[in-house]
């Protein structure tokens, strides 16, 4: 048995870092400081960070948007995040937030409830998403109308706890998103494990499906859920020749060898480390990080050690 005890990161260390930072700021040229205060430089592309309670600008010349409120003719930030401006509208996009869905986003969700003609799906958003029975692929191959018999066997398709990959189709009037899985790329997930990261770290990419060497497939959900699984060859994907409901809605895993399992665990740990260091995740970054980890020949567990993970982040972000 191995046990490691450590201390919590010391508060005094943080405090001294903060103190030196603020000291640095006051030593800086006062003009630079003055520039920021009236907040006229919205034009500049540099994103500005703000914290709750910070006065952003005057309410007389700007309108308040999400993440702000007005007090005494001042627009004040109510969250920590980046300030954004569209014409006269000031918004603050929070750094740590739930997933804000947009139509066309690829998300990974977990079924929480089976209801008449629909499933409720947890997709890390403020409300549960909805997956209608009419927006999944039904057995029988061709696109067809749903039948009463389909309604009766909804749990054969998805049941509580099942993970699925889907696309945001539309929004309901209450803001909940409606999902669809009407593509052979979408559907139930198996052969792997889920990692959760803050949704802000997943960027919109050309493709959210990609595979790493050594047989690992990755699906980056824009809601911060990431599926790491065994690689399935393009030709062996279900539904290549005709739609096989049995295979698509199967709960059984394929045989996975130890090497693949190790690779999956390694990728999982890499994602965790990158997320902990707030590195935005893209296919390029993950590939680079994975190659670095293999090159360093670090064991899966060792990656989580502080020095190794710092080195990994440094290697990825410098490139």
């Amino acid at each position: 048995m191995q046990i490691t005890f450590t201390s919590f990161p010391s508060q005094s260390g943080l405090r001294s870092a903060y103190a030196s930072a603020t000291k640095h700021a006051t030593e800086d040229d006062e003009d630079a400081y003055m520039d920021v205060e009236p907040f006229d430089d919205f034009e500049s592309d540099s994103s500005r960070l703000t914290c709750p309670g910070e006065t952003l600008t005057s309410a007389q010349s700007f309108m308040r948007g999400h993440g702000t409120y007005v007090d005494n003719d001042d627009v004040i930030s109510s969250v920590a995040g980046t300030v954004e401006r569209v014409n006269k509208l000031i918004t603050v996009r929070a750094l740590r937030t739930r997933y804000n869905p947009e139509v066309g986003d690829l998300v990974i969700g977990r079924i929480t409830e089976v209801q008449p003609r629909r499933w409720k799906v947890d997709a890390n958003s403020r409300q549960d998403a909805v997956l209608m029975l009419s927006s999944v692929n039904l057995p029988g191959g061709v696109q067809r109308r749903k039948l009463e018999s389909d309604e009766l066997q909804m749990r054969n398709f998805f049941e509580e706890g099942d993970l699925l990959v889907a696309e945001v189709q539309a929004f309901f009037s209450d803001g909940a998103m409606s999902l669809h899985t009407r593509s052979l790329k979408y559907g139930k997930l198996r052969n792997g494990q889920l990692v959760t990261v803050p949704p802000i770290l997943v960027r919109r990419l050309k493709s959210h499906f990609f595979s790493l060497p050594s047989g690992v497939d990755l699906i980056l959900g824009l809601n911060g859920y990431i599926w790491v699984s065994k690689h399935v060859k393009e030709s062996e994907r279900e539904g290549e020749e005709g739609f096989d409901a049995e295979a698509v809605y199967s709960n059984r895993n394929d045989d996975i060898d130890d090497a693949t399992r190790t690779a999956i665990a390694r990728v999982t740990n890499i994602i965790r480390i990158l997320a902990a260091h707030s590195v935005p995740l893209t296919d390029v970054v993950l590939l680079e990080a994975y190659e670095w980890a293999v090159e360093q020949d670090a064991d899966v567990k060792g990656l989580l050690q502080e020095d190794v993970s710092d080195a990994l982040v440094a290697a990825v972000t410098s490139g």
Partner: protein
Amino acid sequence: MAFKSLSKSEKAYIQASLQSNSSLRGDGRSLQEYRTISLETGVAPLANGSARLNIGKNDAEAGGGTEILAAVKLEVEDIEHGERVDQGRVTCSVSCSPAAYPLASSGGLDDLQHDYSTFLDDILSHPSITPANLGIVRGKKAWLLALDLVVLSDSGNVYDAMFMAARAAIWDTKVPRTRSVEYRAQKKQEGDMDVDEEKQSGLDTRQVKAATDFELEDYWDEGIPLVGREAWPICVTLNLLSSLHFLDATSQEEAATPLRLLLVYSVASKSTPALQGMQLLGSGEVDVAQIKKLIQDGEKHASQLLAAINLKLRDEEVRLTDKARLKFASVR
């Protein structure tokens, strides 16, 4: 998370990984390996002893891990009508932050708190491990040691974490020094009044020393540590999956294992661990022969865990003393 559901294929994946030849876990640990445990004592200035413990938190991460806050508060209690004349008692309660179980209904959260409280209280309030120096005035007053735990977040292995945090808080506890006070009525001779003289008998056995109250001694430190804190119990959770068992399960692994065996050991210095309590959680059954073997394995794990935590607690003690000395020096 106790209320997290996993899909069938996720469960199958975890189980198959654990049972494969190299028995690999989702984060690359071996079966008998703990995640990193962070521990700090003396976190609550108003408590007599306190500790914060986190299992599995990544250094740079803001959240994550199983986080427990434990605090000990000593209260003076009248024991004149109680059964135990010379000992105080220990009570234990656990509350769960709703943030730790966001998916639980309010009723579910209460049930969970009740389950945790009952299990901990049954074991920790047992007279066999009650610290010996909780008495104040024999037969009259004693300290009531109230141990409160808060589950701030849960990502698996809550029971081990709670017992470790409780041990750390108990370790950190200082009992204030007290001195007994006796009241003696002063006889007053009043003028010419005819007063019946009380006859003093040399054979009066009713004259017992009767301390009635106490006062706090003024002393430079906060008090003395609890007697018998070394023997304070510790929990080892064995997660059982068919024939193998593994330690320190994450919440996903907990959801994928049918059975958990909680073993609570108390180790008085250098002797073999004594089983203080056990509980089997989950649906399924284990036969007696297997339980016997598991208890032996658990003993081994418990003594290793204990050695590790004791080392850390001593470190913390040194750190706190240094801190107090620095503070004292800076004030002067």
